[in-house]
C-alpha cells in the first residue's frame, strides 16, 4: 500500500467530513479522534494570552477563521468529487516554513518520492487565503522524472498552502501546510528590484540534477501601492513558464500574481537534466522572454547531455 485514500464520497455526511478534513491538514493526518473540535480549541488556547494582552495580532484573528472558502470552491472546480489521498509523505511532500523568512518570497518545495517520480502528470499549488489562490499549475511531460519542484510565493496572511498532484493513472494526492505570514501580496517591491525585465538566470547544482531558473520580473500583483504616489501599481506578472528540450515540452506551467517578484522555478530530477534546456516565459502584457541553459561547463557536459532526464518515457 503506497497510499491510503480518504474514503470516496458517497453521501452527504461523508462529503462534510471529508471537506472538514481537507480544510485542516493536521486533522486529516490523525483520523482516529473526532476531527472537528480539536483544532479550533487548540488554536484558541494557544493564542489566548496574546488575545488577552490585546496587542497587535493581525494573524491571530485569521487563525480563527477556517481557511475554507477558496479551497472548497477550487476543489469542486478542479477535482469535483474525486478522492484525494493525503497521507504518505514518502510518496510526495510539501516543504514550506511555518514562519516564512519573507512573506513576499516564501520558498516552497514539492518533493516526490521514488514511487512518484516519472508518474506525475500535473502539480497545482494553492494558497487558500491569497487574493489569487491558484499559484501555479504545472503539467509534466509523460515520464518526466521530476523529483522536486520549487517556487517562491507571496503569502498574504495566515493560510493553508497546498500542493495537489495528479498521477499519470489519474489519482490525486494532496499535501498541505500552515504558513504564518502577513502582507506578502501587497509588500512594495524591495529585495532585489529593477534589473533588465525578462532576464533569465540559471543556477545548476554540481551534478546537473537541479536547476534553478530565475526570471527578472516585478511580477506586480495589482495589490501593491506605490508608496510615493499612493497609487496602485498595475498588475504585470508572469503568466506562463515552459521548459523544453530539443523542441519537446517538458514542463508547462500557468502562473500568476502569487509568485514572488523575480519569479523562480527550481527543478530537481533523480538524473542529470537534459541540455540545452530552453525556458520560455510569457507575461500578462504579452511580453515574451526566452533563454537556454547549455548544461554544465565542459568537464561536466557529458553527464549533462547523457540522459534526457526530463521527458523520455
Amino acid at each position, binding site marked *: 500500500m503506497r497510499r491510503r485514500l480518504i474514503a470516496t464520497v458517497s453521501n452527504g455526511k461523508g462529503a462534510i467530513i471529508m471537506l472538514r478534513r481537507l480544510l485542516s491538514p493536521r486533522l486529516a493526518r490523525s483520523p482516529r479522534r473526532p476531527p472537528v473540535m480539536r483544532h479550533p480549541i487548540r488554536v484558541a488556547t494557544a493564542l489566548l494570552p496574546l488575545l488577552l494582552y490585546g496587542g497587535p495580532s493581525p494573524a491571530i484573528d485569521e487563525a480563527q477563521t477556517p481557511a475554507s472558502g477558496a479551497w472548497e470552491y477550487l476543489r469542486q472546480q478542479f477535482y469535483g468529487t474525486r478522492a484525494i489521498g493525503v497521507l504518505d509523505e514518502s510518496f510526495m511532500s510539501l516543504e514550506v516554513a511555518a514562519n516564512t523568512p519573507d512573506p513576499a518570497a516564501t520558498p516552497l518545495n514539492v518533493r516526490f518520492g521514488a514511487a512518484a517520480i516519472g508518474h506525475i502528470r500535473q502539480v497545482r499549488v494553492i494558497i487558500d487565503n491569497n487574493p489569487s489562490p491558484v499559484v501555479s499549475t504545472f503539467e509534466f511531460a509523460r515520464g518526466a522524472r521530476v523529483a522536486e519542484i520549487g517556487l517562491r510565493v507571496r503569502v498574504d496572511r495566515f493560510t493553508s498552502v497546498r500542493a495537489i498532484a495528479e498521477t499519470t493513472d489519474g489519482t490525486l494526492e494532496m499535501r498541505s501546510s500552515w504558513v504564518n505570514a502577513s502582507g506578502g501580496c501587497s509588500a512594495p517591491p524591495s529585495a532585489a528590484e529593477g534589473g533588465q525585465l525578462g532576464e533569465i538566470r540559471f543556477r545548476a547544482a554540481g551534478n546537473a540534477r537541479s536547476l534553478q531558473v*530565475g526570471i527578472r520580473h516585478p511580477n506586480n500583483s495589482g495589490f501593491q501601492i506605490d508608496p510615493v504616489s499612493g497609487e496602485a501599481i498595475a498588475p504585470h506578472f508572469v503568466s506562463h513558464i515552459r521548459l523544453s528540450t530539443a523542441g519537446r515540452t517538458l514542463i508547462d506551467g500557468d502562473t500568476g500574481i502569487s509568485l514572488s517578484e523575480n519569479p523562480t522555478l527550481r527543478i530537481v530530477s533523480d538524473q542529470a537534466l537534459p541540455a540545452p534546456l530552453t525556458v520560455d516565459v510569457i507575461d500578462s502584457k504579452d511580453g515574451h522572454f526566452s533563454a537556454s541553459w547549455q548544461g554544465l561547463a565542459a568537464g561536466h557536459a557529458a553527464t549533462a547531455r547523457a540522459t534526457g532526464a526530463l521527458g523520455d518515457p
Partner: protein
Amino acid sequence: MRRQAWRVAALVWLCLAGARWHGTLAQARDAFTVREVAPGVFVHFGRMLALDVPGHDDIANIGFIVGSKCVAVIDTGGSSSVGRALRAAIARRTRVPVCYVVNTHVHVDHVLGNIAFKPDRPRFVGHVRLAAAMLRSRAFFLRQYAGDLDQPPSADQLIAPDTPVERELELDLGDRRLRLRAWPIAHTDCDLTVLDEQSGTLWTGDLLFRERLPALDGSASGWLSVIGELGQWNVRRTVPGHGALTGDLGAALSAERRYLLALIDGVRAELERGASMQQAIQRVATAEEPNWLLWDSTHPRNVARLYQQMEWQSDPTN
C-alpha cells in the same frame, strides 16, 4: 467528557496566566527606567524580545541628551505609550524643552513613539531618505502595528522628519553640540548616528547590534563599509541600537562584522553551488548561532534577503 474538562481547566489557567502576564507588562511600563550613562546623557535600554510578542514595542535603546537650552530625543520606541513613557521620564529629569526628536532609521521600534512628542513641537530630524522610507512602511505599520498606536490607528500618527540630514548636521542644545551623520545604505537605507562631543558618547542606532542578532534590511556589503569607517572613530562610550552600552566600539563592531561576513560568504557559496534558498537558510553562517539572541526570528530573514539580492548580482557562475 474528561478531556473536555481538562480543556476548560487549561483555558481558565491560560486566562489567569495571560492576565498576570498583562499585569506584569503594565508594571514594567510604569517602571520605565532611564540610566544616566554620562552627564546629561540618558538611555532607556530595550528588552531582548522578538517583534511579534508582547513587549515588542520596548526593544530598542532610546533616550535623550540634555543641553542648557534644549533636549534632543534619540529614537522614541515602538509605540505611542513607550514614547509617552520616555517623555514622562524626560519631564522628571529636566525642565529644558524638547527641541529635537532624532530618528536613527525607519524601523518601527525606533519611530512609533514620535507621536508622543508632538505637543512639544520639536524639529523631527532624520536621514534624508527617512521620509520616503516611512512612506513605504506606512501601510505595513498601520496593518501590523496598529495596536501600538493610539486608537483608532491613523497614518497621521506616523511622524516623518521635517529636518532631513543629507550628510552631516550639527544640533546646538546650548553649551552642547550633537553631530549627526547620515550614512549610505547599510542596516537600512536611512541610518543616522548621533555623536555627543561633550561626553564622547556615540549613538549608533541599529548600525550596531549587541547580543541581539543584527537584522539586515539594507545592504550587507554597505553595512560592512560603514562598520569599517565607524571602527576608526574614537569615542568614550557607545549606545548601540540594541544591547548593552560599551566602552569598546571596535570590539562590538567586530562581532557584528564577523556575522555579516559569514552571512555574505555563506550566501555566495550557496549560490555558487546552486543551492535553494531553503538550503541556504539551513546552512549559512550557522556557526554564529551561539553568539546571538533571537537567531530564529532574524537569521532566516537575513539569509532570504541577501540571497535574493545576490542572486541577481553579476557573478561568474553559470
